Structure formats: C-alpha cells, structure tokens
C-alpha cells in the first residue's frame, strides 16, 4: 500500500510543535527462525509524538524519521520486560508485533505512557465534542438568563456579568481553517486577564478513552471495504457538527443582541 511518505516525513520534521518528544530505547524485534533467542537488544532513538503519529529518528538532529508508528487503535501498557521503565504499544491484531520502549526513568516513562494513551484521533474528537456541547450549554444558560424576570438586586449582578470582557463581540475569526494552513489569529483569542488556573489534583479523571477500534464485523475477506457501515462502537462525525465559523457567527449574534439590550437598559436606568 502506498503512503504519501514524503509529506508524512515533512510533517514529522516541520516546525509544528510536537506533543511529546524524547529519547527512548526501542527493542529490536528479531525473526525467530530458530528455537533459541538471539537475545534482546535495544536501539536508542529520538521519538517525536505528533497527534496520533509516533515518529522515531536515529538522532535528534536527523533530517528524516527512520520510522513511524500509527497509533490509532493501540493500547499502551507497562511491560514485564527485563528492563526497568519499559512500556509497550500494542495493537488488537493477534499477530501484530508490540513496540517495546524503554524510558530513562520513572517520570519519563509515566509521561510517555500518559501522552501515548491519549494520542488517538478518536480521543481528541471525543474531547472536542464534549467541549462543543459544553459551549452550547453555556450559551443556552446565558440566553435563559436573559429571559428570566429581573429584580434590581440581581440586575446589577447580571450587569457585571455582561460587562465581563468575555462577552465582547467575538472578533477573532478563524478564517480559512484548512489543514495546516490556518489563518487563525490566535493572538486575539486570549481575553484580557484570562488566566488558566489549574486546580489539578483531587479526583480528576480524564474522559474515558474511547473503545479501541476493532475490525468492523462486516469486513469479511473478499468483500471490498464497504461504505458507511453502522458504527458499532463509535459514531462517525455527526452531521450536526457545524464548522466553527458558523458556530462563531451564531454565538456572535447572540452576544450582539445581549449587548444591545444591556446598553439600552443602561440608558433607561435599571428597571
């Protein structure tokens, strides 16, 4: 099967930031033609994780990766190897080899396992959908606020809420969001004073990993890969998923209306 390898290699080495990178020792897999093992050996490689792709290079400065592991559908497990700080990337397929990797220490190993477990496209999509929903709900409750009866005491509270810099008309528009050609103006996104305080700790849990992709039941040998088979374990991109320039406009209108109303109330004095 052909792959657009040149482009893939370019993606590996271009300056788009990696999600994780570092040295790992990779176990060399040998073919066991004979009864006895030839002993395990490891090669030190520079690993770079970008999205759901794990690249490895001979050296940190190498211009091209020597290899790639497509991570979709994998599991990452700690490993019973003779080596300390070893973990393995495994796939569902019975005959598939595992990639056994060894980190420099406990912290490095944990960081890699964490990063790799959440590297799948499926996982990312799950989180994005979840946030999409949350944003919708945040907007709905904002609209509900608008409709509820007002009293002077609560109106001042609401006024403060509406004058929150968060509700400035949304200026930052992602214009063309093509893959890698985004003209997104990320500089404008940060609201004044927005701080991402992190209260990590306690019983926070990441969203559950989506079920691993398994071969579609219908893909019997000999039949051409069918089209949209009903997804048993996960749904394809929902037709309701709006591209977010549309979403942007929708929210922008809501907020513009709110602002106008608030400004009018200001002029009239508080009801």
């Amino acid at each position, binding site marked *: 099967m052909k792959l657009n390898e040149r482009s893939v290699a*370019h993606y590996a080495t271009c300056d788009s930031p990696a999600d994780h990178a570092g040295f790992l020792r990779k176990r060399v897999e040998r073919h066991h033609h004979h009864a006895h093992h030839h002993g395990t050996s490891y090669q030190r490689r520079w690993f770079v994780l970008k999205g759901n792709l794990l690249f490895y290079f001979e050296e940190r400065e190498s211009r091209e990766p020597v290899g790639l592991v497509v991570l979709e559908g994998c599991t990452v497990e700690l490993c019973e190897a003779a080596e300390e700080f070893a973990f393995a990337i495994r796939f569902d*397929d019975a005959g598939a080899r595992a990639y056994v990797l060894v980190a420099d220490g406990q912290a490095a190993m944990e960081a890699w396992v964490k990063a790799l477990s959440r590297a799948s496209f499926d996982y990312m999509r799950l989180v994005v959908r979840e946030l999409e929903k949350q944003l919708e709900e945040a907007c709905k409750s904002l609209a509900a606020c608008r409709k509820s009866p007002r009293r002077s005491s609560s109106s001042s509270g609401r006024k403060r809420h509406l004058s929150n810099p968060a509700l400035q008309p949304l200026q930052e528009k*992602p214009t063309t969001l093509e893959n890698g050609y985004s003209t997104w103006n990320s500089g404008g*996104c940060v609201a004044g004073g927005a701080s991402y305080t992190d209260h990590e700790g306690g019983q926070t849990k990441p969203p559950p990993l989506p079920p691993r*992709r398994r071969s*579609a039941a219908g893909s019997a040998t000999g039949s*051409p890969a069918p089209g949209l088979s009903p997804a048993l374990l996960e749904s394809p991109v929902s037709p309701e998923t709006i591209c977010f320039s549309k979403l942007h406009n929708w929210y922008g209108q809501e907020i513009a209306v709110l602002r106008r109303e608030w400004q009018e109330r200001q002029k009239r004095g508080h009801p």
Partner: protein
Amino acid sequence: MRYNERELLSLARQPAEKAAEIRMSVPKKGSVLKKRLVKLVVNFLFYFRTDEAEPIGALLLEHCKITKEEDNVFSISFIEEPERKYCFECATEEQCQEWVEALKRASYEFLRRSLIFYRNEIQKMTGKDPLEQYGISEEARFQLGAHRQ
C-alpha cells in the same frame, strides 16, 4: 521510512467517516482519472480499486490543502509540494462540497485548534477551564499560543 502497515490496513477496514466511489487521479505524469472507492478514516484518506479489499494507497491528511477546483472537482495537495495534486471528480457539485468540508476538518491539527477554540470560549463565558475536570489542562497540545512558532 518504516511504518506499521498492518495497522494502517486495519484502520482502512474500520467504519469510515465518509466513503464514496469517486474518480481520482494521482500527481504523476500521464495519470488519468480512475474510479476508486475513497474512504475517510480519522486523518487518513484511503483509496481502493472498487473490487478490492485492500487499499492501493493512503494519504495522511496533515498539512494539506483542500482546494475546490472546477465543477464537481476538488484536489488535495501538501504544503511542501503544492503543485502535486491529487484530483477528485465527484458525481455532483453537492457531493464535492461535502467532501471538501469533511476533508478540511479531517486533520488532527484541526481538532487541536477546535479544542483550543472551545476551551477558550468556555473559559471566557464561564470563567472556568473545561479541561481541568479531565486533568489534561496542562498538556502541551492544548495550549493556546503554544503553536505557530
């Protein structure tokens, strides 16, 4: 460059986000449009001969440009080789538009940007970081402004 072809082939058999028979050409001299089964799965576009179970090829859809060309036609090219185009001739203009939209959203990079966008919007509206509850707010890939170096 070595890669785990077996897993990629397995991925090609998964339920697709989108699949259709579309006439396609590759950026090679003398290449003509041929009917192919084209299948979008996560950030890969697989293409098959219509009567075969295994794909002829796969395109990783990162750092690519999806262009609406003339009637019913769109193309995919990659950032470092913009003249080399994979062309797709759809049955209808509508189908063409659908594919263009779907492919533009098909990259991991796009998802990442969406996530950062929603995170930021929710934070602005509610004052809370929605990723905190998942314990992933510190991860590099979700940081605003961490990219586009």
